[in-house]
């Protein structure tokens, strides 16, 4: 099987636009979670969220080349992250076959939900509103980006709820390993929507305060929005593109635990098997893992199940772990790719970012997350977890390029 390398990254989140702003905020322990201003929801003053500061028109105007891109929030955010990930490289057919695997959980819902009543009213027909009808699904954003960035050879979209972009990255890596593609741009995007905010609120999963991952008094997640893409290349394609490896995408595993539609099994079976599978594919030992970027949503069920799974897998040799959901909020389908980029930061800069708001250890298990920034520490292999509805568990493993 071929090795897969990360050769580019682009990100936008509530922490800022671009890798530099995101890394600075993490190092400064600055959270992006506050009260949203653009989201059109009656709940926005009650439920904090990690919203990108710019409004949609500003985001669209920040694009170096907006071209014909559909100017909704999802596409504008995603295109900004794509521009950064691709950089100056123009992928030519002679460099090998480049694919594009995107992920989203609610597509263009943010712009659709305010016009839905009009969209389904047969007596109303305004051209600009009618066009929004095409943006409701998950494929629209991917096709906009594929057309704009000339990535039409192999495109696709994944939606497995909160593990969507982890699965998109995994699919891209496997397409390269199996020789179907030579490179793939993979990641995901989700905006804050009334739909998802009310959805998670109806499940009583949202904290009214900034979330507290792995704390005894955690009380749910905060939603966030963002987009992140990683450029994956085979060694052969790297020679052709001239791009440098930022990290090795060394392992991954998708494992559905078939336990419950929305809750993890109490013993964290899915999380355990996903992490174990990723380490095995990379032919590493658990003792090789330097750090885990946990799923760590700060819901009551997730964090204890994930902690039990980590304890079961690592025993007394527990590596440092934390969750970055307390910075970016839970960005749903974008989370896997955002945290994959943070994992590459860990490896590139030999630094770790702690959880925020941590006060009291969970009484059920002796496991403490990282609570202070750690710098100048050698980081070789980082696991990144993304777990979702439907029992979907995904774990990705990134390694230092030797």
């Amino acid at each position, binding site marked *: 099987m*071929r090795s897969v390398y990360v050769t580019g990254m682009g990100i936008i989140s509530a922490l800022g636009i671009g890798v530099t702003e995101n890394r600075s905020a993490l190092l400064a322990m600055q959270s992006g979670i506050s009260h949203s201003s653009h989201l059109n929801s*009656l709940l926005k003053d009650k439920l904090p969220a990690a919203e990108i500061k710019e409004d949609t028109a500003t985001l669209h105007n920040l694009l170096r080349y907006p071209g014909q891109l559909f100017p909704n929030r999802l596409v504008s955010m995603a295109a900004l992250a794509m521009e950064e990930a691709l950089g100056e490289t123009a992928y030519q057919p*002679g*460099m*090998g076959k480049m694919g594009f695997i995107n992920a*989203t*959980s609610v597509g263009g819902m943010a712009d659709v*939900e305010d016009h*839905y009543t009009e*969209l*389904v*009213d*047969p007596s109303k027909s305004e051209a600009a509103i*009618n066009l929004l*009808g095409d943006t*409701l*699904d*998950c*494929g629209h954003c*991917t*096709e906009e980006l594929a057309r704009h960035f000339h990535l*039409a*050879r192999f*495109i*696709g*979209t*994944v*939606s*497995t*709820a909160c593990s969507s972009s982890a*699965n998109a990255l995994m*699919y891209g890596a*496997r*397409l390269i390993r*199996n*020789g*179907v*593609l030579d490179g793939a741009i993979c990641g995901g995007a989700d905006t804050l929507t*009334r*739909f998802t905010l*009310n*959805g998670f*609120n*109806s499940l009583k999963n949202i904290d009214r305060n900034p979330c507290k991952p792995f704390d005894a008094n955690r009380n749910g997640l905060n939603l966030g929005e963002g987009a992140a893409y990683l450029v994956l290349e085979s060694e052969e394609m790297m*020679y*052709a593109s001239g791009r440098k490896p930022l990290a090795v995408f060394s392992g991954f595993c*998708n*494992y*559905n*635990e*078939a*336990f419950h*539609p*929305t809750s993890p099994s109490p013993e964290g*079976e*899915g999380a355990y*098997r996903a992490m174990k599978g990723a380490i095995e594919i990379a032919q590493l030992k658990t003792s090789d893992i330097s750090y885990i970027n946990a799923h760590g949503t700060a819901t009551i069920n997730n964090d204890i199940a994930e902690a039990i799974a980590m304890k079961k897998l690592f025993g007394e040799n527990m590596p440092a772990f934390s969750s970055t959901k307390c910075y970016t909020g839970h960005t749903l389908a974008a989370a896997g790719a955002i945290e994959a980029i943070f994992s590459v930061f860990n490896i590139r800069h030999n630094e770790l970012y702690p959880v925020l708001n941590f006060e009291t250890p969970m009484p059920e298990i002796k496991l403490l997350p990282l609570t202070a920034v750690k710098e100048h520490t050698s980081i070789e292999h980082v696991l990144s977890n993304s777990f979702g*509805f*439907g029992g*979907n568990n995904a774990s990705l493993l990134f390694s230092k390029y030797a």
Partner: protein
Amino acid sequence: MDLAAIMPASYSVNMLSPVYIRSARAICAQDTFGNNDLPGELTEATGNSLHYLHPDYSKYFTIMQLRRMSRVTRTGLVAAIESLADAGIKKPEAIITGTGKGSIYDTEKFIQNILEFHEGTLNPTPFIQSTYNSLNGLIGLQYGASCYNTTYVHRGFSLELALTDAMMLLQEGEIEQALVGCFEEISPEHYIIKQKLGAWKKEPVSCRELIASKTTGSIAGEGTFFFVVQKNKAGALAKLSGLRMLFEPTVAAVLDELTSLLKEHHLRREDIDLVILGYNGDVRHNHYYDAVLAASDTSTCIQCFKPACGEFDTAVGFAVWMAAWAAQRQQVFPSLTIRPAMKGPIKNIIIYNHYQAKDHVLYLLQQTED
């Protein structure tokens, strides 16, 4: 830089090994489910829509269970159950689906509930079921199948992304079989949304006259198609030998891809016995199908399928289902024939479909070798 010089020959594109289709089930507007057959007379569309002919769900679920299940959860679970039963499989080793729009009714219901109850206390069920991978999770729960499980949501590529994933899994060698399916539904609200985008015909059209229609738009449809694919040929209906996806190609690019697909499998165009085309009666997009038809050998049987199931993101599932059975039974459904065959056995089948002229797919299915 000359890539051929640095790249090992084995890394040529499209190098996935063929897989075998062990079972195939279809639920759509026609009576296809019970006998894996298509009745001679097609059920007519009403209001330019072809709606599900629902199986008898009481054979599978209690009334209490049914009350909690959305439409596509019912069609999806039943199609999955029977596909696995046909294949004699107790537990799938991977569950992979594709859907363009997921559970439209649940998405609509949750949007309406948010408006109606002013973001107050809401029932989470429609939100959970609107999640595109909820059917996947439920199939996993039904079988206690803790395994690889994912969902592709890319319009006219959804099923192909799922099948490509299954082909990779089988090639990677971890598993022997996988459950792959696609599902779609149409609701009155979604019909209106797409009507405003010009997707449907303005005048009422009979299914039988759909292909010959000279106007824009098509008729709406819905369908659920499930397959068990496996690594070995034992008991298989057909072999899935090749799969290609092209985004917004020119007609010439489609023909080039078809040529390369045939060449890769050492086939000449006269070796193709059956070509299944996604004609949907929309005059704006017929020229793609016309070009593939024109490039086919005059002795090749040409069939269509959208008069039976209507147009939707994953309608191509119907074509895969009918191709698998054509290879197995060595006969075609006469009601879908555009041009009859002039020769014998059905060994090599090409499917060509596009969704709104954007997502183009080519399949090569072959009769299972003895």
